[in-house]
């Protein structure tokens, strides 16, 4: 019984964090599928070991605590610098490595509105959709650290306000849009009492 209550505490902490994040993000444009924030730029081949290091394995049942170490081996100050709504921008093969769903989850908990990359590793991409984190494939070479971005999720357009340029991203397959728009896979299964893709 002690275990259950402990899990609930962790769950609740997570919900509180998520709610705080959502409140912070609740800007006038959000309901129109528009995201706004600053770009934090990373290189190619950002692995899940960099996103959620194995030495913090013991924090996997305490995601808000794990999120404090997000990407710290790539940028030690990153978790402190990122603000709700900002974007993680990578190069090619973002999220390669392990299946740990904790990696996209702590990116979401840290407040990121989306991850942009030239390409994604398969499991990371799928996990992100399942937990409701937008993952966008585009030419990230054109974006620099600190650029202000405005992303129109519905129409597939990224505006780099700092540079005054527009980038396009390919729309996701319908199945993924459905899962994402229902809030993730758990919500999809709960709402439809099974798969309804």
């Amino acid at each position, binding site marked *: 019984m002690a275990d259950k209550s*402990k899990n609930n505490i962790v769950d609740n902490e997570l919900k509180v964090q998520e709610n705080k994040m959502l409140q912070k993000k609740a800007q006038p444009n959000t309901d129109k599928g528009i995201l706004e924030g600053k770009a934090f730029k990373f290189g190619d081949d950002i692995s899940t*070991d960099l996103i959620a290091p*194995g030495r913090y394995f013991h924090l*996997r049942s305490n995601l808000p605590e794990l999120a404090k170490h997000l990407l710290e*081996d790539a940028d030690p100050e990153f978790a402190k610098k990122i603000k709700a709504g900002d974007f993680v921008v990578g190069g090619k093969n973002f999220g390669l490595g392990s299946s740990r*769903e904790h990696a996209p989850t702590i990116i979401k908990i840290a407040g990121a509105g989306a991850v942009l990359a030239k390409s994604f590793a398969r*499991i990371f991409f799928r*996990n992100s959709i*399942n937990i409701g984190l937008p993952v966008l494939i585009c030419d990230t070479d054109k974006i620099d650290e600190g650029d202000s971005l405005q992303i129109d999720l519905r129409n597939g357009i990224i505006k780099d306000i700092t540079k005054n340029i527009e980038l396009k991203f390919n729309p996701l397959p319908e199945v993924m849009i459905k899962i994402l728009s229902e809030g993730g896979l758990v919500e999809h299964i709960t709402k439809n009492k099974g*798969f309804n893709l």
Partner: protein
Amino acid sequence: MKGVTLPKTISEKILSEHAGSELVAGDIAVVDVDVVMAQDGTGPLAVNQIKKMGFSKVVKPDKSIFFIDHAAPSPRKELADSHKVLREFAAQSGARLSDINEGVCHQILVESYVCPGNIVIGADSHTCTSGALGAFATGMGSTDIAVGFALSKTWLMVPHTIKVNFNGKMPPGVYAKDLIIYLIGKITADGATYKALEFGGSTVQQLGMEDRFTISNMAVEAGAKTGLFATDEVTKEYLEKQQMPAGCFKEIFADKDATYQQVIDIDVSKIEPIVSKPHTVDNTVFVREMDKTKVDQVLIGTCTNGRLGDLAIAAKILDGKKIAPWVRLLIVPASKGVYLDAIKAGIIEKLINAGATIINPGCGPCVGVHEGTLADGEVCLSTQNRNFKGRMGNPESFIFLSSPATAAYSAITGYISDPREVLI
């Protein structure tokens, strides 16, 4: 197209059969799954998600497994709590529990659970290991696996396939690990992203099941969704030896005119002992061409190379020798079964006498949790599958990957060394 059967790849065949409709690469379908698993790093989150969806039982208890192998036995309180969650949920939901004494998940799956033609999904990226048995086996995250436990279903995109033909005779001193590292060096760490790899060619007849597990295990290091072998007599004999139920074996092969997105032919006679250098698996070099590289720790084991044949070749090289005084040699048998066989064959005794430290079956230090974390600036030569920065618990350390033979010989010399110097 109803009634027309197109020639299929192995992936298209297995997924079509499970979906109950004709599927081709690019199609998305909901399919029934045969084996579902999670481990102690991903299982607790899967349990939370199962509960969140309102389920309390798993659909297929005999083929739903929670493994405690990544941090086993528990090195700290938080992980002990996670293990307890898995033990209690397994008991309550009907799922099987593979506890700390059993070994690493991918080895236990191929020893006791997987049959050719199965769909296997696991919350661990190296689930592709079971592809060596002709099963469509792929890694996913905790939420997907939670749904797999609760409904015995998943959604999948049928992958395009890259056919890899290994042709020719394996040179002495070259092993399955060298073949797969060489391939990844050639096609790069995202060369097969979203795709299936199908391994064939004349060399395959020379490869035992253990070799095929090593190759399939690392398919994900090229980004692949799975890494498949067609079944043959080798597969059949292996399943019989493992005492799998009658009917487990099934012929699995691609149709003659199946459509491949790419065909890669590799002449294995040109391959030499090879390593992946830090910090990516595709950063490869033949050992012969390397600068002198001193090693502090050597690891032989894990789900990639912790099987009996791997430990046997290490023991053959280390028999009667001593490891270099500055080297720590860690041996991690992949499973309880491997460990016992290695004891019976006198392998463990030879390794201990040479200076090895034997760790209990499981993931060992590969995941960076315990049992051999590296110090700042230290170099480890390991038979594991991954060498990312920070992988073994310290971002200031350096990991090289090799075959067990290269690892064993390097433990003696204290430098990364070509095993052909002693094997030929």
